[in-house]
């Protein structure tokens, strides 16, 4: 029972548009929450409409692509690009933390983490 088993990357998404193509306000709200975006009620309607248009356009690709065309994720026909297991110089602690808004004890300091625990 893999924790991450679910639909394939390229497979159907249960939250995607249904056969009528309409994306609901609830779905927009859910996506907004996942992206940590504060979206107003009015915007939910606006984005629902806009996302519908985008999804409709993307869906047309599916109509054109025949069975013999595999889904494409990479534009460059390359595979097996590897790096030998050899160390390379990185950044010092000082360099690493130079742009951090806050740091403490050699570590990045971040605000309280709410809601989730890994």
């Amino acid at each position, binding site marked *: *029972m*893999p*924790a*991450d*088993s*679910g*639909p*394939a*990357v390229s*497979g159907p*998404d*249960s*939250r995607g548009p249904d056969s009528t193509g309409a994306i609901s306000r609830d779905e927009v709200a859910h996506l907004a929450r*996942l992206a*940590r975006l504060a979206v107003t009620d009015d915007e939910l309607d606006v984005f629902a409409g806009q996302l519908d248009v985008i999804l409709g356009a993307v869906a047309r690709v599916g109509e054109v692509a025949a069975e013999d065309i595999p889904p494409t*994720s*990479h534009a*460059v026909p*390359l*595979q*097996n*690009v*590897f*790096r*030998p*297991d*050899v*160390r*390379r*110089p*990185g*950044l*010092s*602690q000082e360099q*690493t*933390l130079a742009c951090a808004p806050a740091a*403490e*004890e*050699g*570590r*990045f*300091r*971040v*605000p*309280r*983490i709410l*809601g*989730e*625990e*890994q």
Partner: protein
Amino acid sequence: MTTTAPALVDFDDVLARYEPTLGLEVHVELSTATKMFCGCPTDFGAEPNTQVCPTCLGLPGSLPVVNQAAVEAAIRIGLALNCSIAPWGRFARKNYFYPDMPKNFQTSQYDEPIAVNGWMDVQLEDGEVVRVGIERAHMEEDTGKSLHVGGADGRIHGAEYSLLDYNRAGVPLIEIVTKMIPDTGARAPEVARAYVTQLRDLIKSLGVSDVRMDQGSMRCDVNLSLSPTGSGVLGTRTETKNVNSLRSVERAVRFEMQRQAGVLDGGGSIVQETRHFEEQSGSTRPGRRKETSEDYRYFPEPDLVPIAPSAEWVEELRGTLPELPWEHRKRIQEAWGLSDEELRDLVNAGALELIEATVAEGAPAGEARSWWVAYLAQQANMRGVELADLPITPAQVARVIALVAAGDLNNKLARQVVDGVLAGEGEPDEVVEKRGLKVVSDDGALIAAVDEALAAQPDVVEKIKGGKVQAAGAIVGAVMKATKGQADAKRVRELIIERCS
């Protein structure tokens, strides 16, 4: 927050009404020199944020490149677990908001894992074998380490802020996921432990990880569900994390069985959630509700090209697989004529490899075994360290054994030599030299000591002369005492008899 939890159900009562189904996810940190996608070091315990670079910090403009050694390790693990190796696969981004990954996503394999559909035969203590199916083994990267400040016990709950160290972010991880393990009944806790133990031994034998649960280089998540006996309906599972020792694996399974039965008996339902194992109490507490898979919005990693291991490469790697640890043990057991119990004791004491290494240095198996399980085990015990952490090498033990065999040391002196080595006084020969521990078998020195002892005990001399040869023991003892144990006892006895006849 949590409401009052239903009482735990007695383990035997759980089994009377429910069937457990297990699933185990084990994360193994590879011991490659560098991270999964960049050339940063992976050393444990370095100063925070000193093993980082723009790639593992997720800085704009940086690009990941896959570590070939990590792919090889993943394939070898897959092969050792009887998996098929995927001829083509991509990495994916697992998106989530949590500061342990500075990129805001973890690069992982999703629906195209490198190894699928294998198995491992797990042997239980009484010899019963349970075949555990392997669903998949996939490559991913570890996350950074968070330190939560201001809350109780370093937990997030109640913390004021958190501190992040990204040294571990990007270290190669292999996640090994079992298929559902049904029908283990009362043995579920034992099966879980035996599986993790055997997996640890297997990966150690491959030399791809140091698999130290105490240092987090091997971590286990326990999935467990209960279904009413005979119902054939799979129950809702929980996933228990933070299970950091073999014993905890067993305890976590047992606890979840007892807890879930309590909830179900009370008419409640199990919530699909992540729970945390509490080492102290042996219990689990709820963590976050699991996000559904879609919520991670996986998509193919555009910055990494697909991995397509050729059949030749896979076969080449198959050729590098060592003898499996359990087959190896079986061979040793037969070669050394050990009973099952003796073998198990050696394995549990962590002595098997040390004895083998000592034998490889030329010592007879019997003596090598006796040193490691008796005197050295005592020393380790007294010092409170693992046998392997004693400051003596198998080569040094083999040298001591050789000195005894050559008659240069007796057992008592040999122990003093070992003490010297343990005390950091150098190699066995140096200790012999410095402490003057060689057996005295030179007749000149011995005759003087024998004559002195005989003169001191004329009554014993009479007994020996009268035919009571066993009385010579008293004289031998006196000579040994006078020579601080360094006399060759056999030669001393011969001299006594000679001089009394």
